[in-house]
């Protein structure tokens, strides 16, 4: 489509004076939305299949799919994939601290103890 081409060109041009970031094309955004929808449908499907729910792969599988969706949104929609390394570090550093805090709190309040 001509319209898409126009925006594709815009995305691949050199950054302008106002905005020095590099953003993906429109078609990339639509593909990302489709992938996110497919993953969400997969998650809900897993929830409704008793054999999968009963298996040991259920929780790790859901967590992996959720982490994948999280990473896709952060990389493409929040354009971290195209940003400077400093921004990536500023995002992933606190994210790791937050994750470590969550795990520490779970241990502190004995969430894992009963299962060990």
């Amino acid at each position, binding site marked *: 489509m001509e319209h898409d081409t126009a925006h594709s060109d815009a995305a691949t041009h050199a950054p302008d004076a106002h905005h020095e970031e590099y953003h993906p094309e429109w078609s990339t955004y639509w593909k990302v939305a489709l992938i996110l929808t497919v993953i969400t449908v997969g998650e809900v499907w897993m929830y409704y299949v008793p054999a999968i729910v009963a298996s040991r792969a259920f929780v790790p599988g859901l967590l992996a799919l959720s982490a994948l969706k999280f990473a896709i949104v952060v990389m493409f929609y929040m354009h971290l994939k195209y940003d400077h390394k400093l921004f990536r570090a500023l995002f992933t550093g606190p994210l790791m601290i937050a*994750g470590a805090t969550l795990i520490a709190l779970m241990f502190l309040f004995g969430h894992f103890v009963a299962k060990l």
Partner: protein
Amino acid sequence: MLFVSLISTYLIYKGRSRVGPFPHETWVDPTSGHQLHAILNIPVTSASTFTLLMSSLFMVLALAAVENKGRFPMRTWWQRRLASSKLWLWATAIAGTTFLGFQAFEFTSFVHEGLSIRTNLFGSSFFTLTGFHGAHVTAGVIWLLTLLSIDYKRGLGPADSLKVDIAALYWHFVDVVWIAIFTLVYLIK
């Protein structure tokens, strides 16, 4: 950190409620003898999750429209509409409001089914976590409506792209928090 604390609290209290209703299990009310079904409504929440995911798409399209405004000739009516920042900002705000509508429906139905913030540990941690998230979505919708009013007043252009980008980053943050909540609260039994 706020949401990590709230999610941790929910996970720590998960399965420790002494009385129902419960998120994924049926429960017999000892006073009335009625059997109550699992309270979480996965189809409704899946629809609201889809709405929020699509709102993130609309937000990036709004940002692209603002960044590219006036750069390329839009020959047809359809091209002009698709490149309109107003269209995508409206779509994002409406999707966000729809998500809030789903949440209001969910909260109301939970209260009618006997689950309030004071009923049990699940109710306390669930309403606090999802309520805080809903408050953030509400703030995001207000922010979007503010951008829309600026767009109608003087038009948003490439010079405003940083302002719209910051709003978009906030909106996507709300989205990624919901991605975690949807899995940890609604899907993992």
